[in-house]
């Protein structure tokens, strides 16, 4: 389904003659103290200047592999067998100090979330200094000079100002650059990026990946990219290691593994990618009725620490949702799309502008009042982990809106309604008595959807409904949303930064930037002939775009392995 490119990336690490690998892992086994094995023998080599992608779903052991290599396994988890050779020297069987020194001097790690991996109480300079080698760290002037140099190296402008700043004063992208600067502070041999761009939006992701690529070339680094995003792996690495349940299921050059996958798991992963070239959802045809409409919506937020200044998150935005339509709102983080969604469901109030729902203006001042007027509009949360009360059972969660706002008749057959809703979102009825912590991410999102459907709404507003889920789970939640729209005659407003998601779910698109609408049109128009430069930039930033777009046999790829897709249907295993 993926064209095998004529030009293979140079330097495929499998066969690489006389050079010494930066890292050689063989037969690595990792387990818990009680004997449960988590990684069952991982082998790979990494040569300087090469990049290796480790891909797999949550729980496949990809992060575990990376952490085992750098000696950061969590408590209670230890490497039980195998060997890790760094620049030809065995890491195991050395005393702790030597091992630490060996790993410290040879590897730099870029963690997933810069908001967590940076200390909010230290300035950028203080943190960078901690990462410097001891002989430089001792001198403040030398540390400062080196820190400036590092920041410039990772493409941060006004480096002197940034050094004085605290992490919260910088954007996510800048913070991630700081983390990268810390990772290369000791001039390592290899860089390990553990989901380094997952928390960033597409444009930022592209910039950070470009930076990592540039550093790899300039500093001769070996690079390990751990990601669940096959697009990132396809674009950025030479070799790929596909992991499943702690086993390597496939290992080879990217073009070979992704172009002609041998293992059905790899194929399932590839099939799960939302296609950029598939069918666009059916348009509802002529649009009889507007269900939800905002005119001139404006919302300002005060800037923290400065009472006078305000940020305009929304700047007189007009948006209208027709009956049966699935409207996407696209934009980078900070473009105001979440603010818009919150206003449309009544969780927030615009400073100016009017909101009309089903022909009636929404006038309530408090959230509770506005919600009474907007009960036919429900909301799906981005993060299903935070959207469910950990103390309630699934049935309590789903029944809550019925208890609070249902008719007496609905309340009397609450239990029955909950079970029906579980059927609707394709969860087994036995889940009713579970607690959220007993559910996986995808299952939780199904519960969130069931709760949103409990009051039989006419409109669903979904804020990044799948961005926190595994890829294959994403596809199935999107399928569910598409099915529900057809079954229940719903209108959708979907907020997303993921254009592939939108392509699969939505009929129309609104592109936002800095609180303004820059372009609107049908999904087909936006994808085939974007008029605005910003829209084009967003489309170009999608990782793996070249791989997964516009290949002649790609649509047939969807049906090529019916057995595989069929066997992964049950949400029980999400």
């Amino acid at each position, binding site marked *: 389904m993926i064209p095998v490119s004529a030009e293979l990336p140079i330097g495929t690490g499998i066969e690489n003659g006389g050079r010494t690998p930066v890292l050689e892992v063989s037969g690595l086994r990792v387990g818990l103290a009680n004997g449960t094995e988590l990684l069952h023998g991982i082998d790979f080599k990494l040569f300087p200047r090469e990049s290796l992608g480790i891909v797999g779903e949550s729980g496949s052991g990809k*992060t575990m592999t990376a952490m085992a290599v750098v000696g950061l396994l*969590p408590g209670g988890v230890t490497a039980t067998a195998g060997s890790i050779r760094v620049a030809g020297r065995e890491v195991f069987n050395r005393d702790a100090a030597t091992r630490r020194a060996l790993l410290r001097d040879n590897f730099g790690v870029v963690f997933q979330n810069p908001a967590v991996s940076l200390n909010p109480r230290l300035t950028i300079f203080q943190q960078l200094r901690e990462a410097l080698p001891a002989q430089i760290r001792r001198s403040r002037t030398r540390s400062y000079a080196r820190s400036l140099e590092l920041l410039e190296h990772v493409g941060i402008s006004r480096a002197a100002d940034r050094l004085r700043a605290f992490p919260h004063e910088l954007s996510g992208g800048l913070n991630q650059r700081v983390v990268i600067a810390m990772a290369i502070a000791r001039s390592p041999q290899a860089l390990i990026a553990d989901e380094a761009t997952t928390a960033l939006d597409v444009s930022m992701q592209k910039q950070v990946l470009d930076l990592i690529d540039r550093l790899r070339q300039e500093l001769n680094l070996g690079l390990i990219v751990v990601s669940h995003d096959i697009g990132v792996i396809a674009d950025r690495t030479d070799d790929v290691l596909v992991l499943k349940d702690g086993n390597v299921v496939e290992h080879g050059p990217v073009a070979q593994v992704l172009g002609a996958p041998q293992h059905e798991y790899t194929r399932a992963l590839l099939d799960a990618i939302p296609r950029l070239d598939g069918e666009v959802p059916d348009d509802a045809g002529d649009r009889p009725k507007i269900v939800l409409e905002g005119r001139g919506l404006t919302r300002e937020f005060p800037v923290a620490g400065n009472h006078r200044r305000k940020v305009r998150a929304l700047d007189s935005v007009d948006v209208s949702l027709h009956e049966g339509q699935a409207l996407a709102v696209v934009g980078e983080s900070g473009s105001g799309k979440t603010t818009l969604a919150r206003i449309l469901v009544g969780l927030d109030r615009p400073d100016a502008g009017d909101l009309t729902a089903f022909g009636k203006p929404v006038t309530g001042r408090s959230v509770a009042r506005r*919600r009474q007027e907007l009960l036919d509009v429900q909301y799906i949360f981005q993060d299903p982990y935070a959207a469910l009360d*950990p103390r309630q059972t699934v049935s309590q969660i789903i029944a*809550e809106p019925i208890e609070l*706002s249902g008719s007496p008749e609905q309340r009397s057959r609450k239990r029955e309604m909950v079970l029906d809703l579980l059927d609707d979102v394709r969860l087994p009825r036995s889940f009713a008595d579970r607690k959220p912590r007993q559910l996986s991410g995808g299952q939780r999102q199904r519960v969130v959807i069931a709760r949103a459907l409990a009051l039989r709404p006419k409109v669903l507003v979904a804020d990044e409904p799948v961005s926190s889920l595994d890829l294959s789970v994403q596809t199935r939640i999107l399928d569910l949303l598409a099915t529900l729209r057809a079954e229940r005659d719903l209108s959708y407003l979907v907020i997303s930064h993921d254009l592939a998601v939108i392509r699969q779910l939505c009929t129309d698109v609104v592109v936002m930037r800095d609180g303004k609408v820059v372009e609107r049109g049908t999904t087909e128009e936006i994808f085939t002939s974007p008029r605005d430069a910003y829209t084009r930039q967003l489309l170009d930033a999608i990782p793996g775009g070249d791989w997964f777009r516009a290949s002649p046999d790609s649509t047939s790829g969807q049906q090529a392995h019916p057995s595989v897709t069929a066997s992964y249907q049950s949400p029980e*295993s*999400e």
Partner: protein
Amino acid sequence: MTLLDDQIVSVSSAPRAPRRHWWSATLPAIAALILIVIVGSVLLAHVIAPEGYNDQQITASYLPPTWFGGAHPLGTDDLGRDMLARLVYGGRAALGISSISALLATTLGLSLALASVIGGRFWDGLFGRLADVQLAIPAVLLALIVLAFAGDGLVPIVVVLTVGGWVLTFRIVRVHASRIIALPYIEAARLGGARSLALLRRHVLPATLPLLVVALTLNFSSILVLESSLSYLGLGVQPPQPDWGQMVAEGQAQLNGAYWVSIFPGILIVLTVVSVQILGDRIADHFSLTETVR
């Protein structure tokens, strides 16, 4: 089918949990045992000392403890009253007043905390400043002034102790509840049509319950200390009815000759406070290990 199984073991670079020592398991057990003995004998005071706390025998004043056996195992005081009897009856006053006040203080703190979480800026500010003022005035000083005017009946004492103890609960619960109220699942409830009271009842209150238990133990021990101090200063329970703090004061003059009159009630106060604190810590540990907050 395991392809889509969610992650079993999470990998992160979070610091490892500190190792627990053997005494972290046994200490709470010892504390619980001590409390059971103290509370049990206080409750059974009328069985342990059927003659009451005021059975005077002037001829038998200042008898030293005989420990096991004898008519007065813990000795007698200046009026020849049995120390054991006075201690267990004294506990009724000390523990009784402290428990009631601790419950009231916790309830008051909880109510004000919840009110300031849902009441908006104005009420939050008002209660917050009230708490500041409360903390700025030493509790003993306030108690002295109030009791000087209101006399020292049971009600004024309980009121004084409650007022002195609500801030702790208020602060703990307010911080926690204001974090809970900002979580997405609260918004989810609002989307379902929940108003403020429903939010509190359904989500915030259950989430703060474990904290409340901890706050209650902390409150109890600080209130017991305050109650004993007032009673030591002569402002609490009035003689002849005994109270631990008051007993410490009575024996103070004779500390050289008859240490037991003062030391025994003192030991009981310390043991109770420390045991309650240890149990409170244990409860806090227990809840932070399981999932209370997300």
